[in-house]
């Protein structure tokens, strides 16, 4: 019985959301309201619980240094007042500082020197002549693509042709990304249909076992 109700709720929710395709209506609004409310409570409780487990309890057990992040975190709430709103900047300054540090350290190796080393290696690494030529093609393509993001030069003359060829590489890549998303969203679309056809119509209404 619980499974049937579960499947019924899921179908009702799927249909309510899909009715949004036709136009916005009371069903789609209700579905959205339900999910916001449930997820609000869930996220809030998860974070409260995690804050207690990973900050408050260790603090009570003698980890005094945690008073600093707890105070800074609470300072964020000063944003709700007019007079003290500026105090919230202390909390996110620490976050931004760590973000700044991460940017200056981890990404230089992975996204700059690491990529340069990889590109230099490409024309030489293939086992066959075709692989080597493809690697050279990749190397040239990467340089030409990079010219698109040079801001001190206008794309004219021979340089302009280089930029245009670089753009073709960018377009091929954008096409691939589009393809990936088509495939991914398709899985979810099938997943939603599964709730309707397999879990509800077949299993609940017709009583056919679904494998």
């Amino acid at each position: 019985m619980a499974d049937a109700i579960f499947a019924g709720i899921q179908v009702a929710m799927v249909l309510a959301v899909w009715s949004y395709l036709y136009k916005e209506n009371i069903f789609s609004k209700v579905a959205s309201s339900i999910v916001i409310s449930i997820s609000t409570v869930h996220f809030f409780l998860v974070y409260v619980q995690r804050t207690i487990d990973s900050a408050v309890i260790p603090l009570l057990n003698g980890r005094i240094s945690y008073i600093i992040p707890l105070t800074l975190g609470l300072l964020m709430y000063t944003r709700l007042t007019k007079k003290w709103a500026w105090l919230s900047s202390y909390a996110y300054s620490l976050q931004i500082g760590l973000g700044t540090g991460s940017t200056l350290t981890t990404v230089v190796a992975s996204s700059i020197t690491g990529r340069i080393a990889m590109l230099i290696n490409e024309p030489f690494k293939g086992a066959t002549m075709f692989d080597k030529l493809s690697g050279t093609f990749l190397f040239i393509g990467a340089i030409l693509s990079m010219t698109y993001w040079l801001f001190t030069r206008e794309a004219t003359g021979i340089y302009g042709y280089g930029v245009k060829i670089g753009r073709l590489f960018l377009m091929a890549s954008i096409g691939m990304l589009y393809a990936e998303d088509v495939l991914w969203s398709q899985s979810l679309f099938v997943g939603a249909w599964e709730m309707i056809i397999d879990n509800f119509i077949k299993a609940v209404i017709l009583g056919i076992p679904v494998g």
Partner: protein
Amino acid sequence: MGEQRSIWYKLGNIDYRIIYLLVALMTAWPLWSPVGTPMTVGENVKQYAEHIRDMEPGTVVLCGFSGYMTMLPDIEPIYLATWKMLFEKDVKIMVRVTDVDGPVVIRQEFEKIKPEENFGKVYGVDYMIFPYVLMPTATEIAFTDNIRTVYPVDYYGTPLDDLPIMEGIESMHDVDWYFTSGADWGNQRYTIPYGVKLLCWGTGTGLLPFVPPFYDPVSGPCYGYVGGASQGGELELESGFFGAGVKYNDCKNLAILGLFAFVLLGNVSYFGEKYLGGS
């Protein structure tokens, strides 16, 4: 001439709702009545499965599990097939939940697998789950260095030292394989100082465009990858643990036919209008 142009124009401006309806029906039909479109297993999927089969007894595996509920249809076939393959072997499995939905989803996943009933595994001895912690970069780095500073307790609130599986596991030095959703810098930090080998699992969109540049089945850092429900189906076929991935294959194939038909129609309309329809 004018009438011809209007035909091309009409072909290129079909009401969206007709497109939605036709594609939706093509997607749904195989669920109702399976068509049985053929499947082949890709090279990368074979390699991924091969690495799992080759794991020695006692190997320590850490699984980065996002458990993002929305994405489950695209990734669940991979999770389930992988875990079933791992549970068949005598390896130690630790699961790290990386998304806020994860704490709920992880329990559902393990209820589907039933490690105790189906594989004779015991929680705390053969596998364990870490609780969800929001992990900015710095926290993750702290975790790789000393697991217990970030996770004093497991998912059920048991201190890590009380779990037999955690004996002798202090940092990433003690982990052999890491199942993760990417092989970029954030994940390579497991490989470079700690020598953990990466196997990548994830959604098609989040994994497939990025992982191939890091993939090398012999030297890594990514030793194998499987992304998206299509490849999930291939993994099911390869491992023999059939599930939703194989079932989705039919629907996906037919829906793509629909998409292609509409793209073709759009182009016929465009060229028809340009070359035959006059201006």
